């Protein structure tokens, strides 16, 4: 019969010696060795204890599989080891092989997709991170941390019903908030403005639609950090959030100052703005899917990754993310359109000096900080069941926001998508299409629209004109503030800052078709039908 012995000090070097010693023992018929393990064909079962004793006498640390099983049976412990750098099946096998050799490890089960290795250890044995790192020395993997056994790794894929529930909740919440008018908050930036007013404006913006974009970005990155570096202390986990907010505040201050100094707004063309929104939206979508663990594998490989050498440099020895990433992300939010920031940028234009413009926008960004910090805190500090639920909720939220922003981005760029109404409900509700071609008076056709009224953002939101005849578009600014104070249509070449009262836009449509117009964020939309 054959017995398998675990020999902890059996290595390639000692194998020959072991085989010689074992072969000379009575009742041993054949010996086969592997690192840490030996298979011995013995004549009769009763001889096993004597063989083990003889091997021990020769200095080998031998245990039979039975003994191992017994000692392990008392308390087999499962640990999750988080390993970076695994990409494929070969990586899994390599790591499993290496870890199995670590003292006390009975089984290793690597999952490259999740970056986790499940280790089953003998009772009472806690794998030492140093030993595990040593085991992977010379390979391009890094052991990030060893997690407690009973807690499943963060972010198990939720069940289908739970997903349905999460999305239903997010959409319900969105439509509820929009009914309450949260997305329609209108503020007028007129005349001169104090720093305190900018700060207050920021506070308000932080709890409104503005957070839809930058909050979504923060949430997706903060949640990602939490998942990857959950082992850090509370302050450690909050660090990326602080960096994000710091980056945002600083970039607003600097760029706001620059705007004032140069006297030219950094408002890229609608096409660029639209592309920017779509890019941010796609990022959110992918992150959201990833947070919910429903991202298909190919999607992960599409995700841009930092070059290895670079990521090694910005990840220090403890595996902490360098603060530069969230910082840059926060800084980039300056370019994401939001009604409030755009009105403020326009204000900064008139501020006249670097200091004044910088202070105003800096104060505004600082005002949005509490809301962002709260969001970041919730996503990084909630633990256990509440934490997981919040994490999944954030995932669903980020996906919905992403979809919404895709739509907005395309609208701004002049290619409106007709996606079904997305939860937030801020999308212009169909409010009486004016399908009649207007009368032509003195060679000009006149169309009228009210903006910012209590019933609808654009009323009517569909207008019809004839091609080839000059159009006089009379826009009644009922309550113009926030992003709705800017009306744009890339295809018609329109982009104007609306004032309270009568605004007039004149253009001559040349080719029949449907032309979209929207607010600066693409959040409120309408169309002009040009007929022949």
């Amino acid at each position: 019969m054959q017995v398998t012995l675990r020999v902890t000090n059996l290595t390639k070097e000692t194998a020959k010696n072991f085989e010689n010693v074992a072969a000379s023992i009575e009742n041993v018929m054949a010996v086969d060795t592997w690192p840490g393990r030996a298979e011995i064909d013995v004549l009769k079962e009763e001889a096993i204890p004597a063989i083990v004793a003889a091997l021990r006498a020769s200095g080998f640390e031998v245990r039979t599989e039975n003994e191992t099983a017994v000692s392990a049976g008392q308390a087999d412990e499962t640990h999750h080891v988080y390993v970076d750098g695994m990409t494929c099946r070969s990586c899994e096998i390599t790591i499993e092989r290496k870890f199995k050799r670590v003292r006390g490890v009975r089984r290793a089960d690597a999952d490259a997709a999740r970056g986790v290795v499940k280790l089953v250890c003998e009772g009472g044995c806690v794998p030492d991170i140093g030993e595990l790192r040593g085991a992977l020395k010379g390979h391009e993997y890094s052991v990030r941390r060893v997690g407690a056994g009973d807690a499943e790794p963060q972010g198990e894929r939720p069940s289908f019903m739970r997903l349905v529930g999460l999305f239903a909740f997010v959409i319900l919440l969105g439509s509820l908030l929009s009914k309450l008018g949260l997305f329609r908050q209108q503020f007028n930036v007129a005349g001169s403005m104090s720093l305190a007013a900018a700060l207050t404006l920021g506070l308000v913006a932080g709890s409104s639609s503005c957070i839809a974009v930058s909050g979504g970005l923060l949430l997706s990155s903060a949640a990602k950090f939490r998942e990857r570096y959950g082992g850090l202390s509370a302050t450690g986990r909050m660090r990326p959030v602080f960096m994000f907010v710091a980056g945002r505040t600083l970039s607003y201050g600097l760029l706001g100052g620059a705007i004032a100094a140069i006297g030219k707004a950094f408002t890229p063309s609608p096409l660029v703005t639209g592309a920017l929104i779509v890019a941010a939206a796609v990022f959110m979508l992918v992150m959201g899917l990833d947070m919910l663990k429903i991202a298909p594998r190919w999607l992960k490989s599409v995700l841009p990754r930092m070059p290895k050498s670079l990521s090694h440099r910005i990840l220090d020895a403890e595996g902490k993310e360098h603060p530069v990433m969230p910082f840059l992300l926060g800084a980039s939010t300056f370019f994401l359109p939001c009604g409030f920031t755009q009105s403020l940028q326009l204000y900064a234009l008139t501020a006249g000096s670097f200091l004044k413009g910088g202070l105003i926008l800096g104060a505004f960004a600082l005002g949005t900080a509490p809301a962002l910090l709260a969001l970041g805190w919730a996503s990084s500090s909630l633990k256990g069941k509440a934490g997981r639920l919040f994490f999944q909720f954030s995932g669903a939220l980020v996906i919905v926001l992403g979809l919404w922003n895709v739509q907005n981005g395309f609208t701004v760029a002049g290619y409106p998508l007709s996606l079904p109404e997305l939860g937030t409900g801020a999308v212009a509700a169909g409010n009486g299409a004016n399908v009649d071609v207007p009368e032509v008076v003195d060679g000009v056709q006149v169309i009228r629209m009210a903006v910012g009224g209590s019933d609808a953002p654009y009323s009517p939101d569909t207008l019809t004109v004839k091609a080839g005849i000059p159009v006089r578009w009379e826009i009644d600014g009922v309550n113009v503030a926030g992003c709705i104070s800017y009306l744009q249509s890339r295809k018609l070449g329109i982009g104007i800052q609306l004032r309270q009262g009568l605004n007039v836009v004149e253009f001559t449509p040349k080719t029949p078709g449907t032309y979209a117009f929207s607010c600066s964020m693409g959040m409120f939309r309408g169309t002009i039908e040009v007929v022949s």
Partner: protein
Amino acid sequence: MTTTLIITGMHCASCKALIEDVCSEIAGVRSCSVDVAKGEAVVEHDESVAPSLLAKEIEGLGKYGVRV
């Protein structure tokens, strides 16, 4: 003696690392060098090691095909 194994199914550096690792642990193998692009492993080993054993160990990893 030196044996060249033709290995199919390798696709990345991890495969190379894995096969070299497994191969060099076989008692009697002195060195093992894998070329992923060529799909080859050049193994230097004692006379006592049968090439078929090398092939068996590598195939034992589950996803590679080996010809001696």
